[in-house]
């Protein structure tokens, strides 16, 4: 530690160094840190970079869909050189490269973008603060978790530059295609896209497992005195359930990934049936494996993963809505139990991703039933959020704008999922753009909006400065409009039958003849793509605002700029090592806004119950006035 202290030239100027018990050098403080806040920020920044990278891949694909076979102007040639031969010769995208972009877009957005930001970054930064803990229970494991994630991410990125390019089997890596692809002459036996995808995945899974163990133990063990389970902020509950999903759903996928790795590297046939013929010659493998097995194990993670993506988002939205509606969150207990039921049920719905694989009617009926049941807790959560807004004097701050936008967007995404839950309807909609639109409505304007809400909301806690609210609104409105212009027409395209993996965007298919609102399904690609690029532009104000505010943003006047109630706002902004100056004690629930007979409209969790409150042990809420 002493040896590297001299590496930090800024240490002397750092205003927060006085709070430290012992000084740490730059490397220990910001790179190999074991402080949950630093790890949270590391996860957050890395995850946001990956999110933007994954989005950039999609912007490239949108060019090919809007203008199939045409050279990408301006940057096309440079990109072709950057990604190597076979990617974009003369700026024209090859089908193989398009497949790579599709597979890596999904992988990066989910496993390197949203999970690290929603679960790991916010969970790491906010959860210990919200439960009044000095740090995570296992700080070193926490750091190991981040570095495993980082290595996994680097491996995924490196796979773009090996001979043949990145994985092309889709983010689901269905076998046998994923096993036979990128093998043979011209490919390195190990350093090829799909194998690196698998190896990177093992690191990512390890990272998630370490993180999940840490989160659950922290929430169980390090809650502040008096912070009982039913006094936990909903965000903590959401992270708790998410951690359990990761803990129990990821290992079967890890098993499957190991088996697919064996299939590729050791030529086993876990997922390979006998009698496969590739390029006209029979494959020399023993056979006897099952492609269905891969799908079962993949979706055993894959479905809980959906809730891993959405639950932290719901948690953030709950915090932001309660804070900005200045009301207690409506139906706190039903929210908590809905989240628990959601987590539980998410383990037994996975095969609804597999209606078209030849499973029998009994299995289909079982999974169809559980799938429909799981919509109930989701609806409970969404309804509770909507009712929380009822009769509130809402402050439309930027986090609140994103949080309120989350509600209808998630609603659209959720409701359009119901046709997919019925296997009869899914036969028609399976693998079309309808599915793309459905899950993107949940994840993109849903979860990502929640993430933006969270970033704007907790930014003052992390940096001691606020982000600029005007530029926040400049970020929000174009993003909201573009999101809908991108994804609403996709429902129509999907119902016209446009397949999600068509390289030419459907121009050669029947869809080129079906007209909706004057445009064929195929022609919708152009406005969608333009909206996607605008969406990319709309993120520029955010990026500038983010970095500008870290350095020169308006300083917060006190530790609780949003006048919130939960414990993280009792810590200094930014909190020092060990978080709290005085260990907090919780006396009340998380959302005590607008308590009657109080001078201010928020009562923090660490404010003791006063004698006047004791007479009415449970304050009766004011009647709802419908204006």
């Amino acid at each position, binding site marked *: 530690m002493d040896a590297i202290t001299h590496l930090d030239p800024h240490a002397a100027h750092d205003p927060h160094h006085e709070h430290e018990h012992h000084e740490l050098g730059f490397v220990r403080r910001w790179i190999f840190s074991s402080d949950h806040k630093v790890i949270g920020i590391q996860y957050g920044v890395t995850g946001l970079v990956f999110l933007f990278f994954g989005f950039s891949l999609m912007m490239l694909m949108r060019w090919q869909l809007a203008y199939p076979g045409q050279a990408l102007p301006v940057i096309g040639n440079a990109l072709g050189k950057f990604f190597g031969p076979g990617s974009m010769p003369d700026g024209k995208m090859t089908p193989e490269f398009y497949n790579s972009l599709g597979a890596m877009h999904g992988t990066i957005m989910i496993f390197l973008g949203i999970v690290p930001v929603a679960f790991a970054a916010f969970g790491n930064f906010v959860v210990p603060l919200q439960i009044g803990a000095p740090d995570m229970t296992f700080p070193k494991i926490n750091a190991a978790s981040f570095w495993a994630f980082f290595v996994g991410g680097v491996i995924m990125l490196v796979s773009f530059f090996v001979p043949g390019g990145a994985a092309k089997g889709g983010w689901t890596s269905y076998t046998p295609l994923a096993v036979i692809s990128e093998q043979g002459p011209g490919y390195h036996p190990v350093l090829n896209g799909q194998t690196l995808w698998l190896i990177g995945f093992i690191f990512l899974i390890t990272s998630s497992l370490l993180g999940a163990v840490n989160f659950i133990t922290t929430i169980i063990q390090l809650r502040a005195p008096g912070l009982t389970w039913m006094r936990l902020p909903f965000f903590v509950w959401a992270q708790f359930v998410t951690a359990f999903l990761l803990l129990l759903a990821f290992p079967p996928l890890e098993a499957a990934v190991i088996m697919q790795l064996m299939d590729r590297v050791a030529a086993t046939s876990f997922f390979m049936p006998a009698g496969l013929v590739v390029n006209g010659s029979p494959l020399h493998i023993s056979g006897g494996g099952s492609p269905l097995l891969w799908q079962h194990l993949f979706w055993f993670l894959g479905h809980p993963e959906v809730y891993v993506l959405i639950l932290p988002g719901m948690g953030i939205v709950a915090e932001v809505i309660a804070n900005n509606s200045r009301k207690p969150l409506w139906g706190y207990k039903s929210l908590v139990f809905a989240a628990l039921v959601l987590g539980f049920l998410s383990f037994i719905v996975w*095969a609804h991703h597999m209606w078209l694989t030849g499973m029998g009617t009994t299995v289909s009926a079982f999974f169809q039933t559980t799938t429909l049941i799981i919509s109930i807790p989701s609806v409970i959560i969404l309804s509770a959020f909507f009712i929380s807004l009822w009769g509130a004097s809402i402050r439309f701050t930027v986090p609140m704008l994103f949080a309120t936008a989350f509600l209808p967007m998630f609603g659209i995404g959720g409701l359009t999922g119901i046709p997919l839950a019925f296997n009869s309807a899914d036969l028609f909609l399976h693998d079309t753009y309808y599915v793309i639109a459905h899950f993107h409505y949940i994840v993109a304007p849903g979860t990502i909006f929640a993430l933006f809400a969270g970033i704007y909301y907790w930014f003052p806690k992390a940096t001691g400065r606020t982000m600029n609210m005007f530029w926040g609104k400049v970020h929000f409105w174009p993003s909201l409009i573009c999101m809908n212009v991108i994804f609403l027409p996709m429902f129509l395209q999907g119902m016209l039958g446009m397949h999600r993996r068509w390289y030419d965007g459907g121009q050669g298919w029947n869809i080129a003849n079906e007209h909706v609102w004057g445009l064929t399904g195929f022609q919708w690609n152009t406005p969608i793509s333009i909206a996607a690029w605008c969406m990319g532009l709309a993120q520029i104000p955010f990026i500038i605002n983010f970095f500008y505010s870290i350095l020169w943003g308006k300083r917060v006047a006190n530790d609780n700029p949003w006048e919130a109630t939960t414990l993280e706002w009792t810590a200094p902004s930014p909190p020092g090592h060990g978080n709290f100056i005085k260990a907090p004690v919780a006396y009340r629930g998380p959302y005590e806004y607008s308590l009657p007979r109080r001078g201010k409209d928020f009562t923090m969790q660490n404010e*003791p119950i006063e004698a006047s409150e004791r007479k009415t042990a449970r304050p009766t809420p004011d009647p709802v006035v419908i204006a």
Partner: protein
Amino acid sequence: MNESTQPHSQEAAVAPPDDHTAEHVAAHVRKYIMVGVTLLTFTAITVALSYVNFGTMKANVAVAMLVATFKAGLVAAIFMHLSAEKRLIYRILIFTGFFVLGLFWLIYLAWYNPIVR
């Protein structure tokens, strides 16, 4: 004294005293050795039983799994102290057990009930 400052009214009462004090442990040592011997015996038994024909392969598998489950139960209950563990651990394991059984059962079901084969 305010009751809200008491951490956890509901679960504070159920935490039993730690029975892993030195005297308790000394009393357990004999038990650990006995369990070890039992496990070795049952290893021999399961090997022997695999050479007995129970009619079908399925029956042999069932018998072997029964013995293995018994052995695993001994390891879990005695060596891993699950026979007297805190409620929280049981809760975690019940969930895990449920999901792992679900995984087995549903994958078996999907094998058992295909449209095409």
